[in-house]
């Protein structure tokens, strides 16, 4: 496989000043991810994300011992070691993160209103409101969010749902997210979504022109992608499932009306049953 050649793909991009009202997000270009995990470290450092002692283990899979996104890992570098059909060994790396869905399932099901869309159009859990009901956990179609349990260093955060905040505090202070700032290859880019989508499209064209047909965009469409749009888009070098991502994610909360419809029909049947019982019982 061709090594990426030529000048770095994003030479002149400016650091964006986040402003309230902007639609901000991430573009993660996995073709230039080197798997250094600086994003994971920067995220943990800035957000004071604690270590769960059971996390210190070897997964025996690849150069990845983080494994997945969860309450204590808000960035996760997937590291895939793959042997292609022609016998060549390939490394695929991609830094995964919360998708900050526009129709966010976690937000929709949250009963307390703890999860909300911020003025930057990102999805954030209010730590002082969440009561740990756990509904957001199976709602998320990406398995991003989970409840922090049994952490010793920050016990006050145990029992609360946790995930990437897209560095809400940094954005409010006019800074870019810690992971994007730490990324040495500009694989993680931060900015207004329309601009990121355009940038992703240009990068895809360049890669295809270089003959790298396997490159593809993920969650980059402006049209309906099952989430009403995503705040994190990706450029991947293989099928999404290779990186542990669902091919066509759809938020379950879109089907809520038909679920209540079924519940109403079932309730109607029970009313009929009770009515029948009493009229039959009178005989």
């Amino acid at each position, binding site marked *: 496989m061709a090594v990426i050649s030529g000048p770095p793909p994003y030479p002149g991009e400016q650091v964006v000043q986040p402003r309230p009202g902007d639609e901000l997000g991430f573009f993660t270009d996995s073709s230039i991810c080197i798997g250094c995990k600086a994003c994971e470290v920067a995220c943990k450092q800035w957000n004071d994300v604690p270590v769960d002692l059971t996390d210190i283990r070897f997964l025996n899979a690849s150069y990845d011992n983080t494994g997945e996104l969860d309450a204590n890992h808000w960035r996760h570098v997937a590291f895939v070691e793959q042997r292609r059909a022609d016998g060549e060994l390939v490394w695929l790396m991609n830094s995964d993160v919360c998708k900050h869905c526009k129709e966010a399932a976690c937000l929709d099901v*949250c009963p307390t209103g703890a999860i909300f869309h911020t003025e930057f159009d990102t999805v954030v859990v209010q730590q002082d409101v969440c009561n740990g009901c756990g509904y957001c956990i199976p709602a998320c179609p990406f398995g991003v969010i989970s409840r922090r349990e049994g952490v010793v260093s920050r016990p006050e955060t145990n029992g609360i749902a946790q995930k990437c905040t897209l560095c809400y505090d940094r954005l409010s202070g006019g800074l870019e997210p810690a992971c994007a700032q730490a990324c040495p290859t500009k694989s993680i880019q931060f900015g207004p979504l329309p601009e990121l989508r355009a940038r992703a499209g240009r990068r895809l064209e360049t890669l295809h022109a270089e003959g790298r047909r396997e490159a593809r965009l993920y969650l980059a469409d402006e049209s309906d992608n099952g989430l009403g749009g995503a705040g994190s888009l990706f450029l991947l070098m293989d099928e999404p499932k290779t990186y*542990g991502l669902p091919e066509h994610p759809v938020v379950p909360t879109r089907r809520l009306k038909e679920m209540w419809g*079924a519940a109403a029909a079932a309730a109607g049947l029970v009313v009929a049953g009770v009515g029948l019982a009493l009229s039959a019982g009178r005989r």
Partner: protein
Amino acid sequence: MSQRGYYGRPVLKPPVWTPEVAIYFWLGGLAGISALLSFAARLAGNQRLARASLFTSFAALLGCPPLLIADLGRPERFYNMLRVLKPTSPMSVGSWVLTGFGGALGGAVLGEVLELLRPLGVLRPLGFLAHGVAALLGLPLATYTAVLVSDTSVPVWHEARHQLPFVFAGSAAASAGAAASALVPAEDSAPARFLAVFGSLLELASVTLMERSLGSEARHYHEGSAALPAQVARLLTGTGALLMVAGGRRRPIAVSASAMILAGSLAERFAVLRAGPASARGAIGQDTVKARPGELGRPARARETR
């Protein structure tokens, strides 16, 4: 390797709900439909049945809040459940339904108790009204829990979203009928026995339909930790309903049939709640919520920007 997704890791996180939630689902269903049966019996002039079901409903209701609070990650913040009323969240809607139901049922029970002590003409319509409200709210109380689990990305729940409310409604009706059949003498319990059998049949039929429509995903009801409660539910509910039909007029038989149906109803909730985590863990390298044909790629819905 790509068939197994990313090193065999599931796409989804398994739900973390504890057994308390299964017991709550059962008690909520019992309380909700008992209130309905009680009010209907009151309208039909069957006072014994009305009274027994009302107190059954109240007893079941008392168990609900502690179970719900125990399941939270931060139980001391339980009151945040009523911080907002959020129509997009079945859990929020359910919390308000439970609260409203509790208030109405409390009023109905108070009215009934006062009635027993000393007939109070003026308060009677108020007690009747509260009873009616409780009966009405009992319906969403018994079924919202099915909507709650359906509204997740867990395949075995979400793909059963059209059948689960019928399973829960049937199971709730069966338990309400069964409880009353055990408490009320045979001459007044015919409607309760009918409801117990009706609910059991609805539950069993809906489970069959659900498993058929789930296809291979239905395996989570036949293997793993959900298999035992699923089998127990089918066996007890079926046998209990048969027994109720055959000998429900005789009190000892009615009582044992009732116990079977009640236990079967509880086992059903355990089966559903246990199938979820297994299904989430089994979702490896696949889509979970299936897109409808033509759904993806359409122009995005207009969204209000904040």
